[in-house]
């Protein structure tokens, strides 16, 4: 359908509007947006801001009132909706697995709709179960009710990936799980996306999740107006206005540290395996900072070298610990690190 590509396709929204009859204002008002092929773009905004409606117009679960949608250059509104949806992966918070079908049948549903031969469907289902870390021999013939919430959400992702669509729409697909499972699923998903390079629109109201997952973030305000569209690092460093700053929260600098790893900072010396608190390779700077605070030390050692508090301040742009600069609230008065975000990007 989209030139048979399975790697991402570019999505373009032009003056996209949805006005429900009988409502004074449109739910989605004149949205223009370009989503580059192979990127994961997170729509983040408060409940009722129109982010889900915007997403659902792309696979036409909601028909736009006016405007244009193009995927890989193709005009989506000229395609047959059911056929279109078979080529767009779709995962939702409530998962919506069919309880009367086995896990294998659930995952194989879209390939079956597309008329794949049975052998190819079976092979694909096996592959996808392994991909989302569910042992095929154990899970293939089970039913959704026999799975935990986290396992069901993995199946939901596998089902969305089934026909290898170039574009995926995901509406808080990890929302219904406990924080530990969610974090685990998010990490797995980031790893998966690095391999698959799909174009993904991911809707969430959780800004932390947006930072962790997004190549880019679209911060939306009411009626789906775009407040800012940029990379996570850029939004954290330079929020466009007070609305975005409010979404970012008071700990923007800590969040920026969470995006960086110890390898991203120039070490002040060679690794010191003894005498200093140790952090592993790939640790986020936020976790490294947590380790330093916990040990009452202004430095720690990683396999790539010794890291200092001053160097940490340097990377997030404050220069020195007693900052007088742009973000006086952030570094000097460190909030308690009770909510450490494990990096993992």
């Amino acid at each position, binding site marked *: 359908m989209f030139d048979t590509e399975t790697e991402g396709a570019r999505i373009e929204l032009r003056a996209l509007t949805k006005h429900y009859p009988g409502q004074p204002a449109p739910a989605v008002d004149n949205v223009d947006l370009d989503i580059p092929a192979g990127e994961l773009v997170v729509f983040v905004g408060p409940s009722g801001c129109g982010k889900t409606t915007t997403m659902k117009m792309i*696979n036409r*679960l909601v028909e736009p009132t006016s405007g244009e949608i193009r995927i890989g250059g193709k005009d989506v509104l000229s395609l047959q909706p*059911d*056929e*279109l*949806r*078979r*080529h767009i992966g*779709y995962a*939702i918070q*409530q*998962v*919506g*697995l*069919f*309880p*009367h*079908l*086995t896990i294998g049948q659930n995952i194989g*549903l*879209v390939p079956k*709709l597309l008329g794949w031969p049975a052998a190819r469907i079976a092979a694909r289902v096996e592959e996808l179960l392994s991909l989302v870390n569910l042992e095929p021999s154990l899970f293939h013939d089970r*039913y*959704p*009710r*026999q799975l935990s919430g986290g396992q069901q959400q993995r199946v939901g992702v596998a*089902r969305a990936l089934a026909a290898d669509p170039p574009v995926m*729409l995901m509406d808080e697909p990890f929302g219904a799980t406990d924080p530990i499972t969610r974090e685990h699923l998010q990490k797995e998903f980031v790893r998966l996306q690095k391999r698959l390079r799909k174009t993904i629109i991911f809707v969430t109201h959780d800004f932390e999740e947006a930072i962790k997952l997004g190549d880019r973030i679209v911060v939306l305000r009411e009626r789906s107006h775009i407040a800012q569209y940029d990379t996570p690092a850029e939004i954290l460093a330079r929020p466009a206005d007070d609305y975005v700053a409010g979404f970012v929260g008071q700990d923007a600098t800590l969040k920026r540290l969470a995006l960086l790893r110890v390898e991203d900072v120039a070490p002040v010396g060679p690794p010191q395996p003894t005498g200093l608190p140790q952090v592993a390779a790939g640790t986020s700077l936020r976790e490294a900072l947590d380790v330093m605070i916990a040990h009452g030390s202004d430095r720690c050692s990683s396999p790539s070298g010794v890291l200092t508090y001053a160097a940490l301040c340097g990377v997030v742009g404050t220069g020195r610990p007693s900052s007088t600069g742009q973000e006086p609230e952030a570094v000097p008065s460190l909030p308690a690190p009770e909510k450490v975000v494990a990096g993992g990007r």
Partner: protein
Amino acid sequence: MNFSEYVVSRWDTLSLAAAEHVLAVAIAIGVAALVGIGTGLLVHETPKARNASLALSAAILTVPSLALLTLLIPLTGLGWGSTLVALTAYALLPIIRNTVTGLNGVDATTVEAGRGMGMSRARVLMKVQLPLAWPLILTGVRVSTQMIIGIAAIAAYVDGPGLGTQIFEGLSRLGSVNALNATLAGTLGIVVIAVLFDLFFYAVRQLTVPRGLRVRH
């Protein structure tokens, strides 16, 4: 003649009446299931049609069976015709109601997931909503069956088939020879038929409700 002697001596008559009773109920419930489930599938999404069909089938149920059977005589005559029409009509309400409730009770997100994957409206209805609503629909059919097994006895008034003849004959001659035995035989026969139908539906349920809906964690 005691009861068991009566049953043995009238076995031919009794077994034929029982078989006719079962047949009348089976035909009526088969037709009512087809019509009722079909109606439910068609109207479950349109409030006006849904309310109209439920109101109509409820109205039929309020007509006393004796009156309905009598009113049908000019149209469908005495015997089987009127019996089957009346039984079918009475069986409709629980089936339509449970079909509508079952189809509409399917989780909206499950339906949306199906649509979002590219299943057509009709496919979601037949492949997702119907199987998920099936246990409830089957319960409706089962309730209807139990109800019309009793009503079928009254069909004897319009010369209909079944065990009702035994009951009414017995009652009209009460005090005379074998009157009590005839009434008792008819009544107990109906109880046995009701139990057998229930066993049948238990088996149908076990065989047709998707396994995924019966499994436990």
